Structures are given as C-alpha cells and as structure tokens.
C-alpha cells in the first residue's frame, strides 16, 4: 500500500474536457469520468473558475 493515499490529497493535475456528438466529456484527474450537456458543462466550468478564484484569494489571505 502506498502510505501516501493520493486520493486524500488535492489534485494538482487538471482534468481534460473534450467535445463530441454535442456533449462534453471530462476525463480525469484520476477516477473522474463524466459526460455533460454543453449547458451543464458551461455552468460547471464557471463554478470551477469562481471557486478557484475564491480558493486562491483564501490562500493569499492566509499567507499574509
């Protein structure tokens, strides 16, 4: 057993999204494998961008 349980660590590598047949496929990181409609993908992407900005701000604030 790898004592560093990687799934308990935040992912440092991004997932890869691609489009096909009018749908969006998100593969990775690790065990993520999702198919979304374009609308769901757009809203998920926007939510991720907003959460990433908030998390970055939290990290900056905690470093001060």
């Amino acid at each position, binding site marked *: 057993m*790898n004592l560093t349980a990687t799934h308990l660590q935040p992912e440092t590598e991004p997932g890869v999204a691609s489009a096909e047949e009018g749908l969006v496929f998100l593969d*990775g990181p690790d*065990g993520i*494998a999702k198919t979304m409609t374009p609308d769901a993908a757009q809203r998920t992407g926007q939510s991720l961008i907003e959460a990433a900005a908030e998390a970055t701000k939290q990290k900056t604030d905690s470093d001060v």
Partner: protein
Amino acid sequence: MFTERFLRDKRGASLTAAERARLEAAISEVRTYKPRKIIAKAGEPLDQSTLLIEGFMCRYLDDRSGLRQLVAIHVPGDFLDLHAFPLKVLDHDVATLTGATAAIVPHSELEAIADEMPELTRKLWFSTLLDAAIHRAWLFRLGRLDANARVAHFLCETNARLVSAGLSDGRRFALGLTQADVAEICGLTTVHVNRVMRQLREDGLCVFRSSLVEILDLARLTALGQFNPAYLYIDDDANPLPSVQRPRS
C-alpha cells in the same frame, strides 16, 4: 454435467470427482431464462441458490428514481446467490442479461453438504469469497480509474473469468452485453463507453462488435486497465494472462 465450470481452474479449490458428484446430486432442477428477466428480488426470502450454467446474469441495485446500477455480472460456473444460503434474503436483485440456463440447489441440500463434506463446504465458501474479491476490484475500478482504464479493466477481468470457465481462448470471447450494460458496470454514460470503445479500437487494443470481444493487444489492454488477475485466484498453470504490478512505496 452441470457443475463442470464451477471453480474450474481455481487455485486450491477445484472440485474432486466425489465433490462434483455430490453437488450434481444436490441440483433439484435446471431452469432456462429469457434475456433481461428478473429472477430474484431484494428482500424476498430464498430457500435455494442458483448455479449459472450458460449465459450472463447480473446483480443490481436501483437508485430512488429507478435507475439501475449493475454491481456484479456472473459468467457460467458462478454460484451467483450462494451467499443467500446463510443470509436467506438478498440485498440486491438478480436478473439475466442474456438467455441463461441455471441449476437450482435447495438450501436444504447445502445444509446436508455442510454436514457431510466439510472440504466441499470450504470450496463453496471459497466461491463466495471470490465474489467478494471481485467486488473489491470493482470498487478499485470505479474509484481510481479513468474511463478508458475502467473499460479496459472490465474487459480484462471478463476475459480472465471466461478463460477460467473455458469460454475464452484468451483473445476472443462472446459477451452478450450492450454498451449500455458496460456503461452501468463502469459508471459511465453509454455515449462515453461508445467513445472509449472507439478509442480502444483505434489504438489497436480491442474490438467489441456484435457481442464479440476481440482483444488485439492483451498486454497493453492489461496495462491500461491496471489489471492484475491475482484476485481471481486462478491456478497459475491455467492462467496465461499477463498482469500488471501496481507500484508500491
């Protein structure tokens, strides 16, 4: 002979002639089933277990909106609800995927075997432990692998199980499942599985067409799916399959 595939080539668990004869004698009837037929419902009292002779069956759970998740598939030779002998009810439904033939073994006969033949009883127990090992592999597959690897792992596992049952030559086997079934097994959408299958074909790893799986490059498919058949407890002499050692720290 209805039990010839049961525990075939399983390490330390293959049946002796006397054990096989006793198990054959325990069969009360042989039933045939149409495809996509429910044969046992969760919560129903059971007084018999089912040894699959031909075809594919599955265990599944429905979510609250009625959407199904396959949690196990069974191949010929599997004693698929043997755990209902001590439990007396199932916590999941059982259904056929293809047309199927199964031998019915009353629990009263299993009780008699437990009294008469402790070594055969141990082998029946082995069978349920093998089920548990496969469940653990399914958890690993869903929790750690991406879409391509999940499908690769499932195809390698099924190939290994069918080799053990004498139903695959290690490269080609009949798989009476739809891509929607594979999607349920792998926690993917059907369109995602379709895409994965195309990718596997274009990469020269595997072709799944008209219910026939042809593995073009078993070593690479095994590596992609991080498949290690050790959990299937197949006799080393009967296991021609490559395996992938997972990294250890």
